[in-house]
């Protein structure tokens, strides 16, 4: 059983009180416990079971405008005491930073509305195995599938955030996820791999096992016999698996820390057109059972829904206390990043989006870390399909796609197929004018 609130509150308060007693002017502490059980299956046989129990405290001490931090997984009181002493000694010799401070008291979360983020249901390893057997059997229905690896993970966590300002709150959360990775082989022994997964807050919301196996197998087989294409400038469609990545880049580029440091291509773009005028972007912390839902940010600051982009215009940054003070902005509760971040759905259907151009490259996977947030340059490896007049023609691999986010953002058309499968979500996305490098 994951540790209860009382235990975590007691430990967190102990740390805060001890920090104050040892000379800190302010202290924050987070104590968290997480227990997860995972079963991995491979080719219809048990491969691995993994039980994880982690308990950790992380603590920040302030002496005026000086700050330092420690983390520890050893919650023995003697050990904690030694570490807090060390933290305070370090704080004393760390130079002052005028922007260091706890969040403004009036911004702290007080009202907590239950978002149903914890499901007490437990699924035994035997039941997990039954589920994974069904996943793999569904995948092996297809004769091209030669290997399956599946995994089922259940995780329960609990945490408390405490600060010397009197904040003392936290909550339990749960996560259930299952995935299936399949490998298919063609007549020439060339292999391709793909996957499908489900990840939810509540056990009963998971996809049915055969759905996962069927989809993974189908997606893998579709990738067999890929061709490399010629280098050209072409319209590209991002499948929902990767269109959300554009939002992640956007979120990093509007984080107050990148803006304050001047290392973002979106610096000084507030109230300017950043996207085409049909684009709206929201970050909504209070979705019931939402994968990114939170009651308050990592500093205890209350969170409200943010409309980050309105009709293509950038409206606000993601602001935490420290960088907010640097930028002269109030925290909007985004220390620790976005919550449920999404593009409002577009007005065109998926089918019509495929037909907008006579030739389109449909991308299902990108590899590499080719996003440069300073310049906005983008270049990644990609695999996908050639689409002609709305019809999937053949798989494509060993190509790259490249452009600059400043242009990419302005050339986005979104389909109307938004779904909430991740914490960051986007509909299928058409981007005009990307450069593909192939043969």
């Amino acid at each position, binding site marked *: 059983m994951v540790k209860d609130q009382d235990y975590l509150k007691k430990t967190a308060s102990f740390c805060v009180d001890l920090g104050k007693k040892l000379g800190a002017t302010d202290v924050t502490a987070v104590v968290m416990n997480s227990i997860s059980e995972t079963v991995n299956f*491979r080719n219809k*046989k*048990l*491969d691995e*079971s*993994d*039980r*994880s*129990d*982690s*308990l*950790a405290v992380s603590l920040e001490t302030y002496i005026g405008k000086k*700050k330092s*931090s*420690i*983390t*520890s*997984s*050893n919650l023995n009181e003697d*050990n904690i005491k030694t570490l807090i002493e*060390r933290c305070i000694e*370090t704080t004393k*010799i*760390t*130079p002052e*930073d005028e922007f260091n401070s706890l969040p403004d008291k009036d911004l702290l979360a007080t009202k907590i509305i239950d978002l149903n983020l914890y499901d007490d249901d437990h699924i035994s*390893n035997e039941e997990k195995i039954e589920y994974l057997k069904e996943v793999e059997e569904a995948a092996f229905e297809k004769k091209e599938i*030669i*290997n399956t*690896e599946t995994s089922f993970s259940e995780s329960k966590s609990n945490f408390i955030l405490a600060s010397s300002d009197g904040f003392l709150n936290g909550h339990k959360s749960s996560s259930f996820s299952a995935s299936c990775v399949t*490998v298919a082989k063609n007549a020439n022994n060339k*292999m*391709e*791999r793909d996957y499908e997964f489900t990840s939810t807050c509540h056990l009963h919301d998971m996809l049915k096992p055969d759905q996962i196996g069927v989809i993974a197998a189908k997606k893998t087989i579709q990738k067999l016999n890929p061709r490399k294409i010629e*280098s*050209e*400038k072409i319209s590209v469609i991002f499948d929902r698996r990767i269109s959300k990545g554009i939002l992640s880049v956007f979120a990093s580029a509007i984080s107050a820390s990148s803006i*304050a*440091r*001047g*290392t973002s291509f979106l610096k000084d773009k507030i109230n300017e057109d950043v996207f085409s005028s049909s684009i709206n972007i929201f970050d909504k912390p209070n979705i019931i059972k939402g994968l990114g839902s939170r009651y308050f940010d990592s500093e205890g600051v209350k969170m409200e829904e943010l409309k980050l982009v309105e009709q293509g215009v950038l409206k606000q940054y993601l602001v935490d206390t420290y960088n907010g003070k640097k930028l002269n902005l109030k925290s909007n509760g985004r220390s620790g990043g976005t919550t449920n971040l999404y593009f409002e759905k577009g007005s065109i259907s998926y089918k019509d989006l495929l037909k907008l151009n006579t030739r389109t490259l449909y991308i299902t996977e990108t*590899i*590499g*870390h*080719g996003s440069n947030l*300073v310049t906005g*340059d983008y*270049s*990644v*490896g990609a*695999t996908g399909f050639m689409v002609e007049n709305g019809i999937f023609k053949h798989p494509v*691999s*060993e*190509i*790259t796609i*490249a452009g600059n986010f400043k242009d990419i953002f302005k050339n986005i058309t979104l389909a109307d197929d938004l779904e909430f499968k991740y914490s960051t979500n986007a509909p299928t996305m058409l981007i005009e004018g990307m*450069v*593909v*490098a*192939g043969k």
Partner: protein
Amino acid sequence: MTDFFTKTDISRKDAENIVSDTLNKCDDGELYLENSKSESILLDDSKIKSSNYSSDLGYGLRAVTGEVVAYSHSNEISKSSLKQSADNLQSTLKSKKGTYNNKISKTNEKFYNDINPIEEKSLNSKLELLKEVNNYTRAKSGIVQQVTASFTGEHKSVEIIRSGGEVLTDVRPLTRFNVSVMLEKNGKKETGVYGIGGRQSYDEYLKEDNWKKVCDEAFRIASVNLDSKPAPAGEMKVVLGPGWPAILIHEAIGHGLEGDFNRKKTSAFHDLMGQRVASEGVTIVDDGTLHNKRGSLTIDDEGTPTEKTVLIENGILKNFMQDRLNARLMNTRSTGSGRRESYKHVVLPRMRNTMMLNGKYSQEEMIKSVDKGIFAVSFGGGQVDITSGKFVFNCTEAYEIINGKIGSPIKGATLIGDGPSILKEVSLVGNNMMLDPGIGTCGKAGQGVPVGVAQPSILIDKMTVGGTQL
């Protein structure tokens, strides 16, 4: 060396008994104990942005029978916690029976010293140096907009207790010093990053004002990129510089030669043992025994002494990298490549220092032989799909080559290739092998471990460059 059983309610003898009782009907397994201390001190925007110290203690109990691994880990080293883990393992493996493997050979050779790098350099002197780095780098030019510099250090003690009371231990220091610079000229911004490190004290790497060279190098890379023009798109010849560009070897073929993917037959290399996978001049080894290098280990995380493993010799595939589990199932021996990020993770076969050995050509000859292509000197990260064999990596410093001469710098572009065929495209291997400066971290299955890479300059006849200029 940490004594893991002081301040606990469990004696070493009790722990050994639990291990032996749990594992006696298994093929393999161990109790892995780890005590790691780490620090991270970061200067950014002319301020000390963070100074963090971390203390992490825990164990992982593993039982292996046949192909099945049962694992349980916790922070709490206590009788009840260890018993719960043991019960958990036994319930997973209840219907399986194995024979516990032979003892692990011992080594007296150590590839790094038992030092605690965090305590060897005072916090004050680290803070002072970061301040000096900031001043020195900003004084280089008025176009310096941002400087980020950091120290990260770790001191990790591990103890492995096997069934029957066999005990193996190691103490591993690890340090890294890193500088990142952002320049701005005529409205254009570019960054440059450089770092150094390994398994010695910070001062070994910083002495004789060596830190200035790190700042200079980060500044130089950013300056080069300020003058860069858009990269070309399409297939062309690529000359890779020596050292860190060997990340290509790591991604393109290293991962595909790890035992697990080959046992499972999901690697594009699984049926190529003994066959030609590279040009004649190509020899690649994975070496855990280089003194003080980032990827070196005295023993791996199963207790096996590391070694220098020949992967490809004169173009022929010779060995995979193995941990004990995959070695047993493939009827071979462990190459000392069983690694885990921490006690929270299961062991996987991983790379250590992966190196392409010297050939006989000069870099100059290679560049001269290229009519149109690119010369790639430094990279960011890379990634591979081991099943299809496709891999990418991102240039952070590259130039065009026109008519045998190095031309303008080009913007960071992704290069993409096919693992099993790329080494056949290597037409010239240089004579200037160099190790990377000690900055690599390899990710696999969510686990990051420190690694090294090395290579001489090489000429690749055909690769796709992912630029924007058609």
